[in-house]
C-alpha cells in the first residue's frame, strides 16, 4: 500500500526560512522519519535532519509534526489520513542551525550547572548499599533519552526566551528531583532548585509530561514532589522549625 502524501517542511536557517510543499511516496508501516529520508534522497538532497537510532532511543530526531513536539522516528504515518498534509518543523524553542536541525546546547549548559551526584561515604567493606525501593522513584527519570521535547514544549522558555537564563527546564528539574530523592546522595539541592534553576517558574501545566516519548511523569513524579520538598525547606514554618530544633532529621 503506497500512496503520495503531502508534506510541508520548514527549510531555512537562522537568517530566515519558510514552509515548503512536497509530495512524497509513503509505504505501509513507515514513520515520518522514513518519509523525510525519502524526501532527502529524491527531492531535497541538502535537507538537514538529525537522527541516529530510528528506534526512539537516541533522542536525536526531535521535531514538531503538525505543531506537536514529537520524535520523527516514533510517529507512524498511519496516524495521519492519506489526504492529510503533514507539517514538519524544527523545534521552535531553540536556535535553528538549518532546516530541521536546531542548536540544543542550551540544554547541555543547564546540565553542566546541576550539582553532581555526591554519595555519602562508603560502608566499612568499601561498598555502597541501597535498597531497590529507595531508588525506584529516581529510576523512572533515568529513562530520559534527552530528546529535549519537554524543554521545547515548556511555555516558560518556549514563549519567553528571556526566561532561559533563570529556568533550567523540565528535563533538568527532574534531574534535580532524581538526585534529591537518591538514597545515597548527601547534597541538599532544594535552595538551588528554587533560586538557580527556576522551579517556581513552572506552573504545573504538564505539557512536559504530555510530550515525553518515554512516558516519564515529569510533573506528577518529579516536579511536584520537588516543589513540595522546597516548601518544606523554604515556605513551611512547621517543617522549618522541626528541622531547627532537631526533631526532624532529614532522611
Amino acid at each position, binding site marked *: 500500500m503506497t500512496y503520495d502524501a503531502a508534506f510541508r517542511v520548514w527549510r531555512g536557517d537562522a537568517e530566515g526560512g519558510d514552509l515548503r510543499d512536497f509530495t512524497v511516496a509513503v509505504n505501509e508501516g513507515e514513520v515520518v522519519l522514513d518519509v523525510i529520508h525519502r524526501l532527502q534522497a529524491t527531492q531535497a538532497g541538502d535537507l538537514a535532519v538529525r537522527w541516529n537510532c530510528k528506534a526512539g532511543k537516541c533522542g536525536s530526531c526531535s521535531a514538531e509534526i503538525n*505543531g506537536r513536539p514529537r520524535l520523527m522516528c516514533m510517529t507512524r504515518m498511519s496516524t495521519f489520513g492519506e489526504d492529510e498534509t503533514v507539517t514538519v518543523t524544527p523545534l521552535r524553542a531553540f536556535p535553528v542551525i538549518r532546516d530541521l536541525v536546531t542548536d540544543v546546547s542550551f540544554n547541555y549548559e543547564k546540565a553542566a550547572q546541576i550539582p553532581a551526584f555526591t554519595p555519602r561515604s562508603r560502608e566499612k567493606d568499601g561498598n555502597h548499599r541501597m535498597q531497590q525501593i529507595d531508588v525506584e522513584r529516581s529510576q523512572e527519570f533515568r529513562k530520559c533519552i534527552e530528546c529535549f521535547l519537554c524543554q521545547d514544549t515548556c511555555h516558560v522558555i518556549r514563549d519567553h526566551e528571556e526566561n532561559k537564563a533563570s529556568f533550567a527546564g523540565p528535563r533538568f528539574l527532574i534531574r534535580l528531583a532524581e538526585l534529591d530523592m537518591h538514597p545515597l546522595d548527601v547534597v541538599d539541592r532544594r535552595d538551588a532548585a528554587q533560586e538557580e534553576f527556576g522551579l517556581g517558574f513552572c506552573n504545573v501545566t504538564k505539557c512536559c509530561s504530555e510530550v515525553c516519548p518515554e512516558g516519564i511523569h515529569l510533573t506528577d513524579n518529579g516536579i511536584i*514532589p520537588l516543589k513540595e520538598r522546597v516548601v518544606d525547606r523554604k515556605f513551611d514554618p512547621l517543617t522549618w522549625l522541626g528541622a531547627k530544633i532537631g526533631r526532624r532529621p532529614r*532522611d
Partner: protein
Amino acid sequence: MTATASRGTGPVTPGPGGGPAPRRAAIAARTLRKDRWWLQPLLTVLALLLFIVYSTFRAFQNAHYFAEPYISPFFSPCLTTACEGDTFPKLFTGPDWISPALYILIFPLGFRLTCYYYRKAYYRSFWLSPPACAVAEPHGRYTGETRFPLIFQNVHRYFFYAGLVFNAILTYDAVLAFRDEGGAWGHMGLGTLVLLANAALLWLYSLSCHSCRHIVGGRLNNFSRHPLRYRFWTVVSRLNANHMKFAWASLFSVAFADFYVFMVATDTISDLRFF
C-alpha cells in the same frame, strides 16, 4: 556545506511581546497544531464557571440548605445561631445578612484554588498560560509562581489539613443522615446516599492530593527504613494518579448534594425513602 552555527543560546532578549528571538526558526503561526486543542480549555472554563455561578448563587441565597436530616455541604459546618437545622454546635451570632456559608467557604475554596490539578486547569483555561501544549500564550512576560501573589500557592498543604477537617465534618453529616426527621436512628433515604457518596469522593480527592503524597512518605529518601510510611505512600501514589478524576467528581458531587438538599428543602421533590 557551511560550517555549523556558533554555539550558545543566542540573544537573550526576545522581540516585544515575547515573540521568537532571533536565530529561532522563522515560523509566524502561533501554533501549527491542527487538532481541536481549544476544546479542552473551553470545556474547563465552562464547567468551572458553571460551578462558580451556582455556588455563589447558593451561598448568597442563604436559604433552603437544610432539610431534616440533610444539610448542604456548602453550609456545613454551620456555625451561627441563624443556621437552619442543628447539625453542628452554634458558636456565635453573626449579622443576618452574612450567609453562614461565607465563614467557611474560604477553606474548600482555598484548597481547590491551590490544588496542583486545579492550578493546571485554570492556568491553562482561564489564563491561557499556555492554552494547550505548543500553543503560544498571549502574555508578554511570565514569572510563573516565583513571586507574589502566585508564590502563595505554596501554602497548599495547610489547606489540605483544613480540607481533612471538613471531610470529617461532612462525613459526620452523612452519618447524621441516618436519622429520620424526628431524630430517631435507622433511617435511610436517597439523600443519605447522596451525602455519603459526596463524603467518599471528598476523601478520595483529599487523600490523592500531591501534598498528602509528600507528607505521608514522599519526603523520605529511605523508604526501606520506614516500611509503614512506604505502604501509605504507595497507596496514596495510586490514588494520586487519579487525582484529576477525583477533583472533578467531588466538585460535581458537592454541587449535586447541595442541589439535592435545595430541591428537598423547597419541596420541589420529596426524598426517596428506603427505610
